[in-house]
């Protein structure tokens, strides 16, 4: 909004920290989810872990600084960047037009496609099968929610805050289907009998990317260079094998991973 620009112009000092300042301080603040396994979560030893965090740790290492993780919510990711309270958001942040107006996205490091899972006895294969009274379960702040809200405004969404609640609700038959990242729904169908993924890839392929405060050119450039460089050593494949393979299996590695910032 306009307030951001106003704040930017009225304060001589910029809200963000340049690459130099970060390096000098010896610490980088990275906003990650702390309860979105397997992307960003806290393991049983109290350490941040997951696909996003693995990347974040590498960033800190290559910058030669310590990583300071900040637990963010879907609703405050943008605010954290715009006030410079974190330097980078690495919180499963899907690139969208609206968000790109507020923050700067670096090169992507992952794909998301959506999938829809439904009970095997009433499989939803096409979205127009969903009746006017039926409700589809989504998790608030995810790509599925954004996508369905925008492209299928008629479909009634039942929104939950967290995975555990969405899952329990789905099991309790509170919705006819559950839309989420396709990896998630596939994994769910694999683990739970009686459910089928009727739609395994929906809409355009969106990407997930790190984000920095708008205008933080030095950090953005460094991140892009870093992503490209990491591509040479297949870093994100390694990341996948470390953090995601247990949940999604090896089949999805090629579909999900974006290596070197280049979307296929």
């Amino acid at each position, binding site marked *: *909004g306009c*307030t951001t620009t106003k704040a930017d112009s009225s304060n001589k000092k910029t809200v963000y920290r340049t690459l130099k300042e970060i390096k000098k301080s010896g610490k980088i603040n990275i906003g990650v989810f702390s309860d979105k396994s397997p992307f960003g979560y806290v393991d049983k030893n109290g350490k941040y872990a997951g696909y996003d965090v693995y990347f974040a740790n590498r960033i800190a290492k290559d910058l030669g600084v310590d990583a300071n993780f900040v637990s963010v919510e879907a609703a*405050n990711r943008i605010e954290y960047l715009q006030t410079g309270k974190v330097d980078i958001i690495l919180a499963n942040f899907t690139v969208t037009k*609206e968000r790109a107006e507020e923050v700067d996205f670096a090169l992507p490091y992952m794909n998301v496609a959506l999938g829809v899972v439904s009970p095997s006895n009433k499989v939803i294969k096409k979205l127009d099968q969903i009746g006017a009274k039926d409700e589809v379960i989504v998790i608030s702040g995810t790509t599925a929610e954004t996508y369905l809200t925008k492209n299928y405004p008629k479909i009634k969404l039942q929104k*939950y*805050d967290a995975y555990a*609640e969405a899952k329990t*609700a789905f099991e*309790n038959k509170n919705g006819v289907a559950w839309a989420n990242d396709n990896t998630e729904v596939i994994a769910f169908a694999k683990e739970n009998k009686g459910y089928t993924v009727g739609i395994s890839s929906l809409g355009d392929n969106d990407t997930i990317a790190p984000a920095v405060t708008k205008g933080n050119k030095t950090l953005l450039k460094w991140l892009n260079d870093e992503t490209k460089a990491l591509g040479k050593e297949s870093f994100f494949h390694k990341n996948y094998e470390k953090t995601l393979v247990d949940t999604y299996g090896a089949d999805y590695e090629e579909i999900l991973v974006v290596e070197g910032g280049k979307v296929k």
Partner: protein
Amino acid sequence: MDKDILVSYIPLYKNALLLTLKIGWQGIGLSMIIGLAGAAVLHFKVKVIKNIVGIYVELFRNTPLLVQLFFIYFALPKIGVNISAEICGMLGIGLLGGAYMIETFRSGLETIPVMQSESALSLGLDKRQTFLYVILPQAFSAVVPGLTANIIFLLKETSVFSTISLMDLMFTAKDLIGMYAKTIECLFLLVVFYFIMILPVSIIGMIVERKTRYAEFGD
């Protein structure tokens, strides 16, 4: 702040307001019934039930609504009781509110001098009539400020409805911010709609308090 965005969000907020009001007020209605019944039980010192009411109050007053809702909504279906999110929200507010209301009504009843019930009894009114015609109407005036505070508190507590997928005002705001990143506009609208929801309660509370002040003191 972007006017177009504000305008385009208003319908969503309006729906959320209606839902919050609907469930909130049903819950508040329930909480008042529970509050009155519970306070009556404590007032009449009904054996056994009195203790149950006591345990209920302690349990619901001292634990977060979020967790209460979670159990009502997610645990009950596991044992075969299925209730819709709306009813669950209403129950949650009603049960939490009931615990607070009992306390409020009880303290209101205690402000009525014993002499009042004694003079009612000596006129031949029975306990029920004394409670209904003499004690309760008077307690009401003492209770109004507490009641107003409780109602506002309960309307605001609807913000934890996100756990059970009810799109109340707070959840709508958080959700829109998460999707479209317009934090300031969303929070602004949130405050505006809370204002619309809560200010009338405050004002009505003040008016009712003035109208029902029978006691000898006050201005």
